């Protein structure tokens, strides 16, 4: 399946990087690049594309403004230097993923896989609710042969405990036979982060951070030295 794509970013360096990443994915056909959303709208009035790599933070006309102008938006992957727009991004059905710069090839490939999965599910889509369920806002866990739906934004943290993991939500604690590695692959990186070999947290739920720990509701979670720089990088520090 070949997918046409375009890049919208006001920085030439950022466009060059995304273009290079696109060149590494055989299914992607980069057909054009734009330094402003306005230019891209004119182009999209003439031609359809499958995927847009869109910078959120552009002067005058932001990425979110752009998304709102599209009547039939294609799949959109946001690219940004900020993590604090991640939750807002999930408000839009067309936004499939959210890549924080500098983007690695591994993370880029994952985003493309999400687009492919979403596109593959589309013909089977019966209604809006079905469509959004395939877009990664929740996961199902298997407990006593029951599949229980957990919304990402309700999960506080996940702790590894031997052959099990404990998923702590705002209301309940679930014990699941699985590994942190497996669940990490199912969680959106925009809001989840592994901060210790035994803990993944929803970092939008952090209340405060001390030297070696974070507080999430009433849970004190340790931060390992190796994971601390990534946590600090993703915080919206004042």
């Amino acid at each position, binding site marked *: 399946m070949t997918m046409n794509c375009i890049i919208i970013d006001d920085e030439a360096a950022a466009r060059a990087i995304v273009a290079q990443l696109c060149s590494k994915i055989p299914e992607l056909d980069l057909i054009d690049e734009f330094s402003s959303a306005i230019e891209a709208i004119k182009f999209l009035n003439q031609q359809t594309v499958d995927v847009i790599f869109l910078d959120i933070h552009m002067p005058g006309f932001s990425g979110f403004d752009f998304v709102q102008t599209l009547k039939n938006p294609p799949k959109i992957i946001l690219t940004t230097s900020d993590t604090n727009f991640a939750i807002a991004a999930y408000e839009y059905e067309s936004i499939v993923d959210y890549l924080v710069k500098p983007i690695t090839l591994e993370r880029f490939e994952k985003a493309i896989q999400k687009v492919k999965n979403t596109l593959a599910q589309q013909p089977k889509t019966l209604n809006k609710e079905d469509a959004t369920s395939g877009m990664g806002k929740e996961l199902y866990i298997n407990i006593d042969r029951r599949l229980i739906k957990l919304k990402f934004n309700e999960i506080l943290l996940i702790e590894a405990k031997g052959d099990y993991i404990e998923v702590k939500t705002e209301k309940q604690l679930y014990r699941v036979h699985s590994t942190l590695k497996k669940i990490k692959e199912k969680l959106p990186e925009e809001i989840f982060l592994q901060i210790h070999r035994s803990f993944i947290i929803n970092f939008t739920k952090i209340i405060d951070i001390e030297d070696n720990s974070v507080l999430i509701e009433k849970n004190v979670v340790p931060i390992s030295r190796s994971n601390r720089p990534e946590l600090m990088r993703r915080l919206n520090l*004042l």
Partner: protein
Amino acid sequence: MEQPNLSYIKELAGDDVAFMQKFISIIKEEFPVEVKEYMRQLKNDQPREAAQIVHKLKHKFNILSLERAYILAVEYEEELRLGRIELHSKFITILKNIETYLKTI
């Protein structure tokens, strides 16, 4: 002081020499323009507009593996949005460091 490097770009380029050269040429061209624009906005007492440029520059800090500089830029961008420029001198030191580095590549 941490030093800029091209390790991220080299990893992305692999054997693609053309991309490396293209990227270096872009950053050499784009960086001074953004610095000039940043200085112009500050001179005109437009800190909120300067914040927009800092936002772009901080991405370049990231690309050049300047992690501490990136954290400072995040802080400075917010400061500028509030109309303050206390971190300007530290920010300028980073910009000069990059400017020197870009002359070597």
